[in-house]
């Protein structure tokens, strides 16, 4: 089921949606499922489950550490699908965010089929553009899955039009030039990018890269339909002295952000 329903509900409540990211297998298989559920309990409207990959070249040190830990722990694609299944069972739309090669290797059609049967809503593909994404676009349409591509500050209007034309679910606006990781300041170009994107689509526009606290979430919620948070959740888990405290910290952060998007 498309994540757009979560965006629609948030819109009906006159607020932005909160989207939380966490890699499967981090800090462990069970730990990730519990943490994602804590994010839902804290108020996330959509969950993105990261598919751990050996060469995450769009990710900063925090996500790299988490993904490395997940891979070292032996996470496999079957575990990723099981994670999606467990999280989607909460009723919150659950996407997978993945670099392209694991999908390509698994078989694009087979991946789409297994994602659907796990209850997944679709894919976010940070290193795939519509030009190279033909096989995925066809599979997503065949299995009724969301296709979330990224637009960037450097994207031309022509490219934004091309990208938004093939998106389903929402459009992921990368708010600053750089890799993932919480920043102290939200880039001022972000609002302009969202505005430019809206010229070409009626899909919701979610803004990611750099948001780490309630105040930033509130700021982004002023102009975007969704606020995407990843590294800050991972940071809470990495810094917690115990798993229980990590889960508490994640739930609290989600609640703080959920309050932020409602300001």
């Amino acid at each position: 089921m498309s994540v757009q329903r979560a965006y629609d509900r948030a819109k009906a409540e006159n607020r932005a949606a909160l989207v939380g990211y966490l890699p499967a297998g981090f800090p462990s298989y069970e730990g990730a499922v519990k943490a994602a559920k804590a994010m839902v309990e804290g108020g996330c409207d959509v969950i993105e489950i990261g598919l751990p990959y050996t060469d995450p070249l769009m990710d900063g040190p925090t996500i790299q550490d988490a993904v490395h830990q997940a891979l070292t722990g032996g996470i496999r694609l079957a575990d990723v699908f099981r994670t999606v299944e467990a999280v989607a069972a909460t009723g919150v739309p659950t996407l997978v965010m993945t670099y392209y090669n694991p999908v390509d290797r698994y078989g694009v059609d087979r991946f789409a089929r297994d994602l659907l049967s796990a209850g997944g809503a679709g894919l976010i593909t940070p290193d795939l553009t519509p030009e190279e994404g033909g096989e995925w676009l066809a599979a997503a349409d065949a299995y009724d899955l969301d296709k979330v591509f990224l637009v960037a500050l450097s994207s031309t209007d022509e490219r934004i039009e091309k990208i938004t034309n093939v998106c389903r679910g929402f459009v992921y606006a990368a708010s600053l030039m750089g890799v993932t990781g919480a920043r102290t300041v939200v880039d001022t170009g972000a609002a302009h990018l969202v505005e430019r994107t809206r010229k070409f689509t009626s899909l919701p526009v979610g803004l990611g890269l750099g948001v780490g606290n309630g105040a930033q979430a509130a700021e982004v919620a002023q102009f975007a339909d969704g606020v995407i948070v990843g590294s800050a959740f991972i940071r809470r888990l990495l810094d917690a002295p115990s798993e229980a405290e990590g889960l508490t910290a994640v739930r609290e952060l989600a609640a703080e952000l959920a309050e932020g998007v409602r300001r």
Partner: protein
Amino acid sequence: MTIDAVRSASAVPDESGHFGLFGGRFAPEALMAALDHLAKEFAAAQQAPEFLAELDDLFTNYAGRPSLLTEAKRFSAHAGGARVLLKREDLNHTGSHKVNNVLGQALLTKRMGKTRIIAETGAGQHGVATATAAALLDLECTVYMGEVDIERQALNVARMRMLGAEVIPVRTGSRTLKDACNEAFRDWVASVDHTHYCIGTVMGPDPFPMMVRQFQRVIGVEAREQVLALTGKLPDAVVACVGGGSNAIGIFHAFIPDEGVRLYGFEAAGDGVETGRHAATITAGSVGVIHGMRTYLLQDDEGQTIESHSISAGLDYPGVGPEHSWLHDTGRADYRPITDAEAMDAFALLCRTEGIIPAIESAHALAGALKVGRELGPEATLVVCLSGRGDKDMHTAAEYFGFMEAGQ
């Protein structure tokens, strides 16, 4: 020439950067504008007389081109008597073929109005070449290098720092070339406004494989003329080592239309392909996507990259340039593995028979030439790309051959 004209001058890549099913542009959206800009500027530069003249002047009066074609008579005796001709890229300024590509891309960086250049490096040869060009053309320079490689190529690290480059150790993953590429891409995504990523080989998203080929093809153009002048005919085989594959594409490209000339690429087999500890991407890999391109790569059944292993830092990479994948699939070139031990034997042999210390990377081509020479026999002529010199490898070689005594 327009960009289309540059592309159509060769059969590949097509207008979307594909070499058959290989290549393409699997890049983050944040880089797409920069890749388009680069492709346009590259194409414009190819038809700009002042750009071509400046590059030509640097090749001749700075890098020392044309490089020699040296007949290796005593070495030939070990190659089944086949006539072995060495294309001496080791004699270029900075000690390898890498300078050809870097001078081209550094001039392009200036042309694009960018002030900073970044690079990944394995053996350090590309890093040294980039640091050199940056010093010459007054560009800020950052080089990413895996921690393992920093250890085994200490001399080149010192050279880069002397030249004013910042060398950033990469401590993630296998801590070798692959991870240095990841870090360079991460830097570029954040700095693309004022920074050019000078990729060191024929890999990465379009237009890099085509552009680097264009700057390296001088090797084969010269070699073809030189071998014709020396022997009156085309060679029977052209031999090169392949990591990412820029020296190989460089020397192959001018010979691709010459159907009678066999092309051989030798990959690093490390401890042996059967051990799993190798970098023989085409020999033992499968098709996937890495670093912006579709190509053969070393990956497991779920698409996770398998770490490569080679005594040669410059060949220690789990992917390969997409044009090599295409040349392999079309059967135009033949790719074979060479183990660490075979490469080091050939390394010692060239030292002792010709008084030339090759880079360990190039020693893989030499080991391959010994095999090809024995196969083709004494009537055959082989052109071997001696892609770099081995000064940087003295520590590794001394350890390998046991020249390092306790306390020395």
